[in-house]
């Protein structure tokens, strides 16, 4: 039971990271109807930028960890958001009205570009960092097994919750959010009613990338490493989360992320670590077959 509780905590932390990435997928899919294959690599770029800015801040003599983390968070969100914007501008916008395969291949190409760019720019080796946030609490201890909640885990979950709250407010209460929902429903109609569709789509990518940057930074805090290849698998898993939650649904993406995080952690704990990715991918297939609209998604009506 203690072991189970510990795994649930770990799963929720991992799930928060997946959920943050999944929001980017689900928003982009909702608004332009394409799988943004490069999104996983945007997450990886976010992790790298967090790592580099952290190193720089430490070396110029900042010592207050909360301040450093706040600056790192803002820097990586800002720069990664610009990456998201650039990717949309270069690779997707020219293909907006092209046939459906073109943006998908362009996205795959962009994913190769981003991951190999960071390999060339930062080297192929894994970049480890010493634990930035240390310490934690022991929740309960019996039979020699302690259920621990580390400070890093608390930071990850709290940051996720705060950002989700801000983000939900953004989508449901602001002008931008209304524009986004309008574009999701009908781009032509939205344009006729004075919504700048191009700008709204750009902003969707920017917000998605900023959240992916947060995920990248949380990954760095929690696992203490980044490498250029981590975007691919994390991306597929986050996409699985988005599909599981119902693509286009924001609470669904978070819920799906948590589910995938829990399943992956529990699978590793009770079955085999080697096959944890196989488990995640199998869930993707099973969900798409038996529950194509996901947990919170609306069924798609097909018109002839």
């Amino acid at each position, binding site marked *: 039971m203690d072991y189970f509780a510990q795994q649930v905590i770990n799963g929720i932390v991992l799930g928060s990271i997946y959920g943050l990435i999944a929001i980017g997928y689900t928003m982009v899919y909702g608004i332009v109807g394409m799988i943004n294959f490069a999104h996983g690599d945007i997450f990886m770029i976010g992790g*790298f930028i967090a790592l580099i800015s952290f190193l720089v801040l430490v070396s110029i003599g900042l010592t207050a960890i909360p301040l450093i983390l706040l600056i790192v968070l803002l820097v990586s969100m800002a720069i990664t958001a610009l990456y998201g914007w650039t990717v949309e501008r270069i690779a997707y916008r020219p293909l907006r009205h092209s*046939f459906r395969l073109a943006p998908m291949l*362009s996205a795959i190409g962009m994913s190769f570009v981003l*991951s*190999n760019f960071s390999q060339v720019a*930062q080297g192929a080796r894994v970049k480890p960092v010493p634990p930035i946030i240390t310490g934690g609490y022991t929740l309960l201890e019996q039979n020699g097994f302690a259920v621990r909640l580390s400070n890093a885990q608390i930071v990850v979950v709290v940051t996720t919750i705060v950002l989700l709250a801000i983000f939900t407010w953004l989508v449901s209460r602001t002008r931008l959010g209304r524009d986004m929902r309008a574009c999701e429903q009908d781009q032509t109609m939205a344009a006729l009613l004075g919504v700048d569709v191009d700008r709204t789509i750009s902003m969707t990518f920017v917000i998605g990338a900023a959240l992916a940057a947060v995920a990248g930074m949380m990954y760095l805090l929690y696992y203490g490493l980044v490498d250029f290849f981590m975007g691919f698998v994390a991306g597929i898993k986050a996409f699985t989360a988005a*599909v599981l939650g119902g693509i286009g649904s924001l609470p669904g993406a978070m819920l799906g992320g948590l589910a995938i995080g829990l399943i992956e952690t529990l699978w590793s704990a009770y079955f085999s670590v080697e096959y944890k990715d196989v488990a995640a991918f199998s869930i993707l297939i099973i969900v798409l077959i038996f529950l194509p609209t996901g947990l919170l998604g609306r069924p798609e009506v097909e018109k002839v």
Partner: protein
Amino acid sequence: MTASAPERTSTSRATGAAFIFKKALISALVALVLFSLMIGIRTEAGPTGQLIYWTRFGDLASMVAIVFGGSIVVELLRQWWGAAGTTIRVIPPPVQTTLAVAGRLVAPALLIFALLVPVIFYHQRYILDLGILVLTYVMLGWGLNIVVGLAGLLDLGYVAFYSVGAYSYALLSTNFDLSFWVCLPLAGILAAFWGVLLGFPVLRLRGDYLAIVTLAFGEIIRLVIINWQSLTGGPNGISGIPRPTFFGIPLTASDNGLAAKLGIPFSPTHRIVFLFYLILALALLTNWVTIRLRRLPIGRAWEALREDEVACRALGINTTTTKLTAFATGAMFGGFAGAFFATRQGFISPESFTFQESALVLAIVVLGGMGSQLGVALAALAMIGGFELFRGLEQFRMLVFGLAMVLLMIWRPRGLIGHRAPTVFLKQSQAISSDLVKEGHG
């Protein structure tokens, strides 16, 4: 958001040095922010495991300068070329007929050239090896073309069948001592079986969902190969895979080898030439089967499925069998290619079957114009040839490949061969633009 404003004016054909300069400046500014940390600072794990970093502001400055210059060049080119889609280039009729004749001659010319390659380049081992590689991808492209180009089912996990074929041959030949010619059909059958196995669950899926499921399937196969060490040797792969024989006669220097039997001096090039003709034959088999199948009801059903699945059902076409046969046929040729790959390399490991391979083959098919046999062959030649050009720049290769994919999609989203003759026509055959061909919702 400031940079999106000049873009809108450029569509109304704004010219002038000030505009170009402003746009380039914005691009350079964006590049500066993008690259500031990623290029300006280099991190590496130091000797003690502690991360160290050093600055590379020179590289950063040159990158920003390149973006600035490149942006000016691109903008000048765009203005010189005219805004996309506004000018219709009319080709005069005589040129058109010449082009049509030339177009008809390309395929036979390529075929004759392919047949002559081992004769012309007999002493250039490198070119022969490259030719074998290109033909392998031509075959893979033609195989995937059945699934993507004809049936309109977007498959991002084609490499799974390639690996099934390769591992089938490797395991059957090393464990049971079966010859290549026995294993080849077995590898094809096994791959086709896996194709059906994948096909069943994804029957109801469409478009992007289908793509992501096939991708996941490809990754699952690769992960299983890595982790099932007792059978597949895990990441170490399988080595010592038997070389192919000339229908039972080994291509070795021994007394019962082919060279000794023919009474000619032995040369290791014989095996390369044999492999070249073998993959050429396999590729042509794929092409021939595809062309024949297109004329059969099943091929017609595939193309109908690509155009409109609902209409297909309304006409009483069994979409289940249509999709499954497409998957199985495509997978079978992938399996053949895999078996060939295993026998050529003599060593296989999961590293050869990553998602990048799937993406490369899919890029070949889409670049070839989705459904055009000649286009796929030309695209394979261009892609693999281009890949070879960058062999010296080992670490930049995938970067260039990714960039090429993005740029090619922007430049020609419909592929190199944008027109093709319809399979069935009423009264008069007329080449149709591939803009009119749907990509399918499969």
